[in-house]
């Protein structure tokens, strides 16, 4: 197996922190800024972290392209454009034909107004089946159907940004993002491709997802609370578009673009949550990555969703981090970003890149928690964890180049 370095040469992140790295930094430092993007009214009793206004047409100029997507795809296609720009790939038609894309996506986007009309009108009918069929036949629009196909997310990136080496879409919540990154890293490290665009997006403005996660008992309701001290129903959705350009060192050198960060490794696994030991899985993973001591020079960005914060996944991750990373600056990112499900790990890998480029951690986001007790300082490595709300455990290790 060829073992090449996986280099990050570009990233793009659209999130509740804003769009430019300087804005991320400002928002991470200032509780007022990120709290202003927490909306508990629009989808009450659910709470979402929203993306501040951005100029969609700067990355997706054609109105026809914009109309073919809902917010999730727009966030992602926009962020993909930012990543390609940073990597110096944007507009390079010949190179873009060599770029392999792996995208993590949730279900496509539904016509909420039509769904509402059906939900409201269906009760008490004895011909529900026929009536719903008629409503859909009259109400569905072809362009929106295309926004409902998850793979059209990647399709839209191909169309808007002309990325056409290959296009694959992974589904399956948090693990889809982790596996998109894992497969891209493995293919790149082994020489099955030289340049990869990997990313995901999530729109919190999705009532049908809110009710589904609520039915599972995962959604925080009514009042915002600090991430690590939430009840088990402790998840707030967050908006995100997060894309990385990964590249071999040779390719970056040939193109004369700087290597910003190196992804040393990524592991993703599934543990049977009913009977298995998630912490044991995580322990095996960090041993496999050869991390050694997780000390103060390693920032740990946790993608804990907030679900199971009292007795479930988030609580278990907190306990594990308190034991293995007691001396490291640990940060629960969902506190400020909400949880963008498929995009969680990618978003936090990008924020980890920003930390390593600056060489510093930022201050605790939940200063009252034990797990975030260590303050800011200089850092050389970053560990990004991603334990899904219901399944899938992943961890990535990043270093300065």
């Amino acid at each position, binding site marked *: 197996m060829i073992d090449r370095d996986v280099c990050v040469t570009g990233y793009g992140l659209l999130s509740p922190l804003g769009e430019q790295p300087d804005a991320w930094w400002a928002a991470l430092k200032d509780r007022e800024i990120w709290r202003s993007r927490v909306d508990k009214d629009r989808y009450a009793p659910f709470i979402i972290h929203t993306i501040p206004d951005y100029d969609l047409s700067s990355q997706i100029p054609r109105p026809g392209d914009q109309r073919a997507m809902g917010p999730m795809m727009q966030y992602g296609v926009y962020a993909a454009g930012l990543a390609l720009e940073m990597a110096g790939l944007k507009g390079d038609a010949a190179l873009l034909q060599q770029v392999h894309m792996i995208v993590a996506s949730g*279900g496509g986007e539904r016509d909420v107004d039509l769904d509402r009309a059906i939900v409201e009108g269906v009760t008490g009918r004895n011909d529900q089946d026929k009536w719903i069929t008629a409503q859909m036949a009259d109400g569905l629009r072809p362009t929106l159907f295309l926004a409902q196909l998850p793979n059209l997310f990647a399709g839209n990136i191909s169309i808007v940004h002309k990325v056409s080496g290959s296009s694959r879409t992974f589904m399956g919540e948090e693990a889809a993002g982790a596996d998109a990154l894992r497969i891209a890293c493995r293919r790149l490290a082994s020489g099955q491709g030289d340049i990869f665009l990997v990313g995901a997006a999530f729109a919190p403005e999705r009532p049908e997802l809110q009710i589904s996660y609520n039915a599972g008992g995962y959604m925080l309701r009514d009042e915002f609370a600090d991430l690590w001290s939430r009840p088990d129903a402790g998840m707030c959705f967050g908006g995100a578009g997060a894309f990385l350009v990964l590249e071999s060192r040779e390719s970056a050198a040939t193109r004369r673009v700087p290597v910003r960060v190196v992804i040393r490794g990524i592991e993703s696994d599934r543990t049977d949550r009913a009977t298995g030991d998630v912490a044991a899985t995580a322990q095996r993973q960090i041993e496999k990555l050869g991390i050694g001591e997780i000390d103060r020079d390693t920032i740990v960005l946790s993608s804990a969703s907030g679900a199971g914060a009292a007795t479930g996944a988030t609580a278990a991750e907190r306990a594990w981090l308190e034991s293995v990373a007691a001396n490291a600056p640990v940060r629960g990112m969902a506190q400020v970003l909400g949880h963008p499900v498929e995009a969680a790990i990618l978003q936090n890998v990008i924020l980890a890149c920003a930390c390593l480029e600056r060489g510093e951690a930022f201050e605790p986001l939940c200063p009252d928690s034990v797990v975030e007790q260590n303050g800011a300082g200089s850092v050389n490595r970053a560990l990004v964890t991603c334990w899904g709300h219901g399944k899938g455990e992943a961890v990535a290790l990043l270093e300065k180049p």
Partner: protein
Amino acid sequence: MTEQTVDPFARAVAITGVGMITSLGRGVDANWRGLTAGASGIHWIERFSTDGLRTRIAGCVDFMSVDPITIPSLSYAMADAVIAEAMDGSGLGAECSIGGDLFLAAPPIEHDWVSRLRLLEAVDPGGEGPYARDVGESGTEKTRVWHSDFMNGTLADKLAQKYRCTGSPITLTTACASGASAIQLGVESIRRGERPTALCVGTDGSINSEALIRFALLSALSTRNDPPEEAAKPFSKNRDGFVMAEGAAALVLEDPLHARARGATVLGYIVGCGEAADTFHRTRSNPDGHAIIRSISSAIADAGLQPEDVGYINAHGTSTPENDKMEYLGIAEVFGDHTKRLAVSSNKSMIGHTLTAAGAVEAVATIKSVEEGVLPPTINYREPDPDIELDVVPNEARAQQVEFAVSNSFGFGGQNVSLVIGGM
């Protein structure tokens, strides 16, 4: 043409187990009998009312014991059955615990209306807003199932648990190329030496009224309902759209050395994979066909072959006016003079378009074609399209040995995947 990325470990990967379900029946044998007899699995939809809809036929799989039929319940039942068949045939026993990742091509899952209405009944109505009636009880045993059943990762999670697959199971979609993408991911994993085996599966049980309406809105479906079995006519002049269908297929892929060491029967080999994305349009391919051309030619290059080495193409052949024309164009460009010596047939004439599963279903049919030396026909071929000069193996199966075959899968969103399959 631009340079292709060739896998540095490019080599054949063995196929040691296969399983298959389509509207023609359950199991590889039943399907192979149907496909070589020129039988059709397309019939009137009875699962839901089609009153007022222009398309009222499909290749529904109606024989699985599933109640209620929802996208996840039927897709799971079929995947489970084909994996069991493939594992059994591979001689690996009932599980993958020797080291095999799961790559599952599955339809995107949303709450269909059957489930949505059940959810409404299950939770406490009340409140305001678009879905506010659904915001009642939560986190109870009764409501949790509405969450887990409608997460896109749940099918793979359950299957990986049942068959003890290693690693994190991957659920993927590249629209109608998904099944082939699952195989490609498995091939890559084995070539990298990560695992000795891979379980590659495509499943699709997503025929409901909403899905039918959505495809109808794109004018993609045939509306020649009567008789149902004559609606799908790939490469015919009077083709008017595809026929939605359900099905599943599973392949156990294996490092050939590993297969040999344990004395496994090798059914055939995936010798090359190719893919390319189209940047032209969401539902149409670029008129110059370049993505289709890149997909086929990079698969042949990955296999270390020349176009002349290929004897048969299991076409994507959907029976839409657009696809069949573009696929012919791509084939003619890649194969040049060799095109007229190629046999090119479409399984979809008989089983319809199994969507997410199609790439896997048709890969299994291609393996059988190479293994048995019999090419399944393109049925309903009565009015040849004069612009498509292909030997489509019209209407009746043909005994013909081929050393290498290509299976094509192209999807909405411009995703194109080609596999080269070889015999012993």
